[in-house]
């Protein structure tokens, strides 16, 4: 077996174009996903099952089925209906890029909503009571105390979710998008060097994940800096 890594160097610019597409996909769906996730998480917490029922079903569906099915449902499935094809949404729904964004956003928002819910429920009851005693309204309590607190708690799990999203974005290649994996596959179709190109693509994914982990460590440190006194080491005496 002879591996020829010169093809990697030759095709590196195209792999980087694919990388840019991957980054765009991940960033857009993560941001949109977080925006969608917040109301879902808040509704899911409600004790009234009329309010929490729909978010529960939404989360269960998107966490219980493969992302591949969800992408195909949006990309191929939507075109089954005449009404969709003639509606104003069609210019959006016929583009693989926007279909991928829609599927990724819905998928990641289901996972993110669960993370948010866990974080909000992890806040000690005493802080909620303190807010009530001070006389805050519910909106004030969420805006000033609960959400900022939840943000600090959520960070480690949310960092993981972004890395999972990064890896899931490889599925965009199945609906003809030229993301990093898609680009690698088209290059291989021409050069027939699967091992070299796929390993190079894997390396790029690895670098991005390590970068995300590093950034989140920094944000976590900053966000939770008020907890810092707990972790200050007592200097050795003598």
């Amino acid at each position, binding site marked *: 077996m002879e591996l020829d890594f010169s093809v990697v160097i030759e095709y590196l610019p195209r792999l980087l174009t694919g990388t840019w597409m991957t980054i765009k996909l991940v960033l857009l769906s993560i941001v949109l996903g977080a925006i969608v996730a917040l109301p879902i998480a808040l509704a899911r917490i409600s004790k009234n099952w009329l309010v929490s029922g729909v978010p529960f079903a939404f989360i269960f569906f998107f966490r219980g089925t493969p992302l591949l099915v969800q992408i195909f449902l949006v990309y191929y*499935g939507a075109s089954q209906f005449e009404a969709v094809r003639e509606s104003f949404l069609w210019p959006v729904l016929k583009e693989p890029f926007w279909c991928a964004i829609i599927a990724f956003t819905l998928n990641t928002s289901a996972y993110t909503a669960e993370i948010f819910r866990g974080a909000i429920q992890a806040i000690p009851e005493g802080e909620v009571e303190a807010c009530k005693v001070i006389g805050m309204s519910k909106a004030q309590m969420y805006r000033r105390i609960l959400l900022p607190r939840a943000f600090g708690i959520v960070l480690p799990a949310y960092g993981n979710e972004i*890395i999972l999203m990064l890896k899931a974005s*490889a599925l965009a290649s199945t609906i003809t998008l030229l993301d990093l994996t898609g680009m690698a596959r088209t290059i291989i179709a021409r050069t027939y060097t699967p091992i070299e190109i*796929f390993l190079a693509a894997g390396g790029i994914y690895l670098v991005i994940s390590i970068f995300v982990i590093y950034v989140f460590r920094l944000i976590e440190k900053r966000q939770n800096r008020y907890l810092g006194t707990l972790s200050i080491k007592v200097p050795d005496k003598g």
Partner: protein
Amino acid sequence: MLDLHGFGDQLLQGASITIQLALCSLLVGLILGLLGASAKLSNIKPLQWIANLYTTIIRGVPELLTVLIIYFGATTVLMAIASQFGYQEYIEIGPFAAGVTALGLTFGAYATEVFRGALQAIPKGQHEAAIALGMQPRRKFFRIILPQVWRVALPGIGNLFLVLLKDTALVSVVGLEDIMRKANVAVSNTKEPFLFYLVAAFMYLALTIVSMAVVHFLEKRASRGLTRG
């Protein structure tokens, strides 16, 4: 009523393949996970390095890419190895074998972390008691440590299995005749993508619910020796 145009049987056959793939990968993954966790906790540095490299790479690379690398790369690697032994014929591994390898490797990497945590959660006294009773290391591991590790690790392993179940859909990309692939075939024949992908989605959902029930049952069984005060 739901009209599947006669593709219902095909989808059920696909479900059977999906289940087989998930269970085989689970077996491979559990073994790899236990080996990985043992390697990470061993005192031998090279073993630790290998285990760390394994989990870092597998967890940082998309599952789809792992499947593609194994499927397209394994042929090249296997033929190179075989040619060392003077075998020159063409060797190809099927999508099922590639899927089991790729998903097993993925599951194993995540399971390594779960098992490592569980192994570390076993109190030192348990080890000492087993040694005091005169158990050999192997007997101690299988009789005392493993059953307890199983109990601690089950919730984590159960979650990983649900992830694995959904990842099986990726192997359809390299041509395995699972639920996803059967749905694709049905769609190209009937031009009703929404219907068939939705049916596929609900089949996965059903498998997920069954797995959750099984995990719940196993968890109850595994902790039956644990009395709650």
